């Protein structure tokens, strides 16, 4: 494996040349450059879940050791998917190449590579579709925009389908709603048919399948990680929380992205969930078996995604819960909103979700029986069930990053904003062109959050980072809140690179920081165990007026 390369400095990365090369795109082979691609998957990961053609392999190798009949496999794969997905068939046929999508892609804005224009990324596969599946392409070849499927074309697909984060921003602007995410997902399925997975996706998928979560945390490790968080909470609030794992008969199953139990600042968010539930006296349980809300299978194939997603309903049934509450995660919620019930439903063994605290019926989750925690908390606040001291967040000037999937595959915009505006006094929006449905990707979604492709990630995250930079300079924003575990993992390095001085947090970290809990000691530390400005121990002497 090649050593990770040094990422160029920000000043160099912003020198983007948007002029296309002299050579036609069909004559310009893809260059797989260090810093912009992910390593090939180790064979064991593919073997563990039964993906075909596992082998030692690297994208930079001349010989990818493809199966003898790889072309046939891929073409059959296209044929099958044309029959299974109207989206695919339609998106192959109706694009007029108006180019409205071009500068909507964060990878195009950040790299200038024309094949990162969604239209051209789609043409990579469309041209092959024409050659083998349309009369015009069969008859007129290149004149009809058709080309053969060759080794070089396959490598090009691989390169560019792993330079797309399936964020759907192009789809918002396309006059026909052509969704590059859909094309990338199908493109990656085809690449999976011949064993060309990336390591950073293959590993989490195998982990999640066997151990229940991407990080491969075994049950006792989950328990001990939670212990640490519980200890920290006790230190901060004086309250000992006892979360339960795999408890039968709980009213609610709580499923969060596993990243929240593992790395900062996700762990602060997990503390936030636990503190909130404790304060409410919620009858809930975590599960070690269904310990992953996210779904890296979604970045390999629909079947794999379904196999991983299966555990959530299966565990809800085994534990006999009434409904499921879901933590803050982006693609997790696209899956839960648009796919879960279709794959693994109907979830008729549960009840329609009702908040035990407010009595609110979550009618928008009537059949999936799964409620987003931002919906749950917003309802609590609206019904005055919580007491906050927002001044505990006064040292923070907060802005909110809408994650791609919750924005464009769900539309949860107001709930988190309502929460943040309640628990923080200083909230500032980024510019309209970069939030809500027009939000920019973190640059590392859909399994691109590896270490070896840092240049690509910094380029892709550039539009998001620059929008943060604007509010950082204008309003002194120093905290980037979000509702996505991938964001919590990848935005910190993005901020360090582009906007030093801006930290990243989940929304429920802010909630719990401001939450006034029954029986708590005077808070002098925030959830990060850092002193709360103006609330240090010694300041008590001045108090009392």
């Amino acid at each position, binding site marked *: 494996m090649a050593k990770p390369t040094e990422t160029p400095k920000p000043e160099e990365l912003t020198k983007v040349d*948007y002029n296309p090369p002299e050579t036609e795109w069909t004559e310009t082979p893809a260059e797989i450059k260090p810093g912009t691609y992910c390593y090939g998957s180790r064979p064991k990961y593919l073997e563990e879940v039964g993906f075909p053609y596992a082998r030692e392999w690297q994208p930079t190798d001349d010989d990818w050791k493809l199966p003898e009949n790889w072309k046939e496999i891929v073409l059959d794969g296209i044929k099958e998917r044309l029959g*299974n*997905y*109207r*989206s695919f*068939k*339609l998106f192959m046929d*109706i*694009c*007029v*190449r108006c180019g409205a999508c071009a*500068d*909507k892609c964060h990878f195009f*804005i950040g790299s200038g590579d*024309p094949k990162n*224009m969604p*239209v051209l990324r789609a*043409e990579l596969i469309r041209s092959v579709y024409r050659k083998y599946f*349309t009369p015009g392409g069969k008859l007129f070849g290149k004149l009809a*925009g058709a080309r053969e499927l060759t080794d070089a074309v396959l490598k090009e697909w691989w390169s560019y389908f792993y330079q797309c984060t399936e964020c759907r921003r192009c*789809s*918002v*602007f396309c*006059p*026909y*709603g*052509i969704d590059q995410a859909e094309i990338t997902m199908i493109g990656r399925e085809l690449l999976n048919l011949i064993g060309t997975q990336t390591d950073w996706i293959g590993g989490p998928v195998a982990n999640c399948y066997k151990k229940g979560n991407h990080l491969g945390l075994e*049950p*006792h490790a989950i328990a001990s990680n939670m212990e640490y968080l519980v200890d920290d909470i006790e230190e901060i609030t004086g309250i000992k929380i006892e979360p339960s*794992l*795999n408890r039968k008969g709980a009213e609610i199953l709580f499923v969060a992205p596993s990243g929240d139990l593992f790395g900062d600042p996700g762990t602060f968010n997990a503390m936030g969930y636990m503190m909130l539930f404790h304060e409410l006296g919620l009858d809930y349980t975590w599960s*070690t*078996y269904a310990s992953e809300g996210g779904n890296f299978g979604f970045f390999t194939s629909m079947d794999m995604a*379904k*196999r991983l997603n*299966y555990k959530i309903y299966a565990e809800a049934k*085994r534990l006999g819960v009434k409904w499921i509450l879901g933590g803050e995660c982006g693609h997790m919620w696209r899956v839960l*909103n*648009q*796919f879960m019930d*279709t794959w693994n439903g109907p979830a008729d063994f549960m009840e329609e979700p009702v908040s035990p605290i407010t009595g609110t019926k979550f009618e*928008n*989750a009537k*059949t*999936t029986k*799964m409620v987003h925690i931002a*919906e749950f908390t*917003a*309802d609590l606040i*609206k019904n005055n069930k919580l007491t906050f001291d927002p001044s505990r967040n006064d040292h923070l000037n907060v802005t909110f990053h809408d994650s791609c999937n919750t924005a*464009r*595959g769900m539309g*949860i915009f*107001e*709930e988190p904003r309502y929460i943040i505006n309640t628990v923080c006094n200083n909230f500032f929006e980024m510019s309209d*062109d970069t939030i809500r*449905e*027009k939000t920019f990707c973190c640059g590392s979604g859909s399994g691109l959050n590896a270490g070896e492709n840092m240049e690509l990630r910094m380029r892709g995250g550039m*539009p998001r980072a620059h929008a943060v930079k*604007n509010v950082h300079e204008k309003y002194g924003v120093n905290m980037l809140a979000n509702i996505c575990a991938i964001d919590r993992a990848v935005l910190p390095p993005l901020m360090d690179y582009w906007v030093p001085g801006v930290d990243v947090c989940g929304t429920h970290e802010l909630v719990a920081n401001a939450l006034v809990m029954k029986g708590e000691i005077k808070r002098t530390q925030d959830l990060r165990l850092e002193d709360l400005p103006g609330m240090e121990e010694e300041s008590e002497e001045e108090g009392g007026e």
Partner: protein
Amino acid sequence: MGIVFSLIVVIFLVAVSLVGVKLANLQFLFGVVVPYAAIIIFIVGFVRKVVDWGRSPVPFSIPTTCGQQKSLPWIKHSKLDNPSSTGGVIGRMLLEVFAFRSLFRNIKSEINGGRVTHGSTKWLWLAGLAFHVSFFVVLIRHLRFFMEPVPFFINIIDALDGFMQVGVPHLLITGVLLVAAVAYLFLRRAFIPQVRYISLPADYFPLFLIMGIGITGIIMRYFTKVDIIKVKELTMGLASLNVTVPDGIGAIFFIHLFLISALLIYFPFSKLMHMGGVFLSPTRNLANNSRVVRHVNPWDHPVKVHTYDEYEDEFREKMKSAGIPVEKE
């Protein structure tokens, strides 16, 4: 390459019809046979394509949500950009089809002074809308050639279209607008480097073809006038399946008709099918209600899963030592 090739093909089509009518006297072929064939190919091709798409499964509910979801009753729901019901979807589609809602959002993003900046840009939306609307009005206006008496609404449209009352016959704005919009769409394709880079012959060809149709139409109306009575005799004959080809119709008419026929024949095999496709796009025509109503995948199949029992078998001892309840002690 795409530009020159497409232009040559259109010029060739013009030449074929000109030679065919002027030298070979093939008025019947170009005035009757080809138009009928074109209409049949268009209708059959269009219907087949749309039926094929329509029959294709939509396994998952994948609307692109462009506004606030319907959730808690006190949160304002964006009914058109994130519809939760069929009514909302119809509204969203109407906005898309008649107002090009998505294109209206267009933003230009680029790097200025080391920073990514965004600005509104509406030219593509405006030209696209101008093109489609004027083409539609021109089409409606042409119904006068296929109906006797001419319905009142067509006379009204004609009157409105010619409201500027310039010249004799009155200048019809949509004809000029159509050619101007097509010219703009061509120029942006030819001169914006990124758009030129992605353009195929299939992008230039319909533009030249439609430009040819518009220009021959304008020439016929305002310059080398054709005998309109005789033209109507022919078109009425076509419409009533009682064909007749009167003598003395200018060649320009046959060129016009042949280019239209070419467009109709080309249509079902081309990107122009976006006309039918836009209605079928699953990212636009589905309601975002998949947490309320179960969306069924017609080809759903069982998959291999890792069950809880297998999981517990592997981790039972570790679970017990961590105090996590297990099914089998």
